[in-house]
């Protein structure tokens, strides 16, 4: 299976404070990898490095074999991102937000219109395309952000705690939808969360704590490695007992 994302010996520090230490992992095509870690584990820093908002001298990040530092534009073209905080323009309509994004990816108006319709339809948001984002609830805003992140057909989708603040049905809807995308469209996903119930048994898992990878592999492998049969228990042991 081809590798969509490869993070190799990546380290990052804010001044003298190490935020990430020697991070190494890969994500294959169609794989959903859950990046599990408590608040402050370094998840957002890792996302900022993968999206090239920040640059690290130590280590390498490859998206579809493209180096994010040396070929950042080509690499970023393969990337869709949903940040932890809503990054939609509140005063613009759903449609305007999506058109803005499509223009940044160089999509012609015709292509953009077709893709926007397709993605909004898939998210059940087509009828609300003319509404201002400010008028939407949190769950709907997230759906728009996911539609936006997929407009340019990326091969890798990054989701940084996308369900924070959402109610249970909205959360479940997003989790199921993303897993369907992996399965049907071969989309690779890196999903940062600290919520155990967002993990599917088929997912890959990375447990990040205090800037270090404490465990990685399939859900079963991670649980077996810690001699437990429960993710919550494993997570607790990895992030509390060894803290």
């Amino acid at each position, binding site marked *: 299976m081809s590798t969509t994302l490869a993070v190799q010996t990546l380290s990052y520090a804010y001044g003298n404070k190490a935020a990430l230490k020697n991070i190494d992992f890969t994500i294959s095509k169609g794989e959903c990898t859950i990046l599990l870690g408590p608040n402050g584990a370094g998840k957002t820093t890792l996302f900022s490095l993968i999206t*090239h908002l*920040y640059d690290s*001298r130590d280590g390498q990040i490859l998206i579809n074999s493209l180096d994010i530092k040396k070929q950042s534009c080509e690499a*970023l073209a393969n*990337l869709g991102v949903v940040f932890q905080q809503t*990054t939609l323009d509140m005063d613009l309509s759903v449609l*305007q937000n999506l058109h803005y994004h499509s*223009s*940044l990816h*160089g999509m012609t108006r015709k292509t953009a219109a077709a893709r926007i319709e397709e993605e909004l339809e898939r998210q059940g948001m087509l009828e609300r395309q003319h509404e201002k984002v400010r008028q939407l609830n949190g769950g709907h805003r997230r759906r728009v952000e996911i539609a936006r992140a997929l407009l340019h057909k990326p091969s890798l989708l990054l989701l940084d705690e996308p369900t924070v603040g959402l109610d249970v049905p909205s959360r479940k809807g997003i989790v199921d939808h993303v897993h369907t995308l992996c399965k049907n469209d071969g989309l690779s996903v890196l999903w940062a969360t600290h919520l155990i119930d967002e993990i599917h048994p088929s997912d890959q898992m990375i447990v990040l704590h205090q800037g270090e990878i404490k465990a990685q592999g399939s859900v079963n492998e991670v649980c077996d490695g810690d001699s437990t049969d429960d993710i919550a228990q494993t997570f607790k042991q990895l992030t509390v007992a060894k803290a």
Partner: protein
Amino acid sequence: MKLAHGIIALKGIIKRELWRFLRQRERFIASLVRPLVWLFVFAAGFRSTLGIAIIPPYETYILYEVYIAAGLIGMIQLFNGMQSSLSMVYDREMGSMKTLLVSPLPRWFLLTGKLLAGTFVSIMQAYAFLLIAWFYDIQAPWLGYVTLLPALILAGLMLGALGMLLSSFIKQLENFAGVMNFVIFPMFFMSTALYPLWKIKESSELLHTLASYNPFSQAVELIRFALYGQFNLYAFLYTLAAFVIFMAVAVWGYNPSKGMMVKKGGGPS
């Protein structure tokens, strides 16, 4: 970067700025009220006390309102530049700046696009001001309204780049008010916007020196000459040089590995 991609993206960035601007009508009105108050109240009040001798580009004695008009156009662009920078700090805090920065285009291009978008808005404001001023009998030659356009583009870019530079150094929105006080007001008052250089020299040598080196003064002079169909080479070169320097530092400030965002240890939000 492909040319077609760049053009589509640039159109998108400008269009977004326009959408935002049109949705914020108060911003448009405020941007016009400020210079109009200066024109109708301040300039009218000072008309009798501040006589203006014949100085280029004017060919005859002029009223103070006529002199101040170019400075007020500069003021519109100065405030717009700072407003854009404020919105960039806001966008960064709110996260929407990330949408721009993670798009597959070179960072310098994205920042230049943002700058052009802001300048475009400031030019619309400037012409709206001139339209109102025209009815107040502040009328330049017709050709001047055309030759003014390139001057407004350069002045707008320079002041926008200054705003962008500041936004890369300002970490939080709360710090912005201080910058406004330390940048906008000194720049505006220590310039040729309100009084000609020779008049400042009469009062203070130091102020005269500061005003003549102030890039805002040169932007105002560029605008003043262009409005009367003339070209001020020195003002043009000075404004251009200031733009290049401000822009270079701003792009450096937004560079993910070298910029101030990293040096501050602010990290991603």
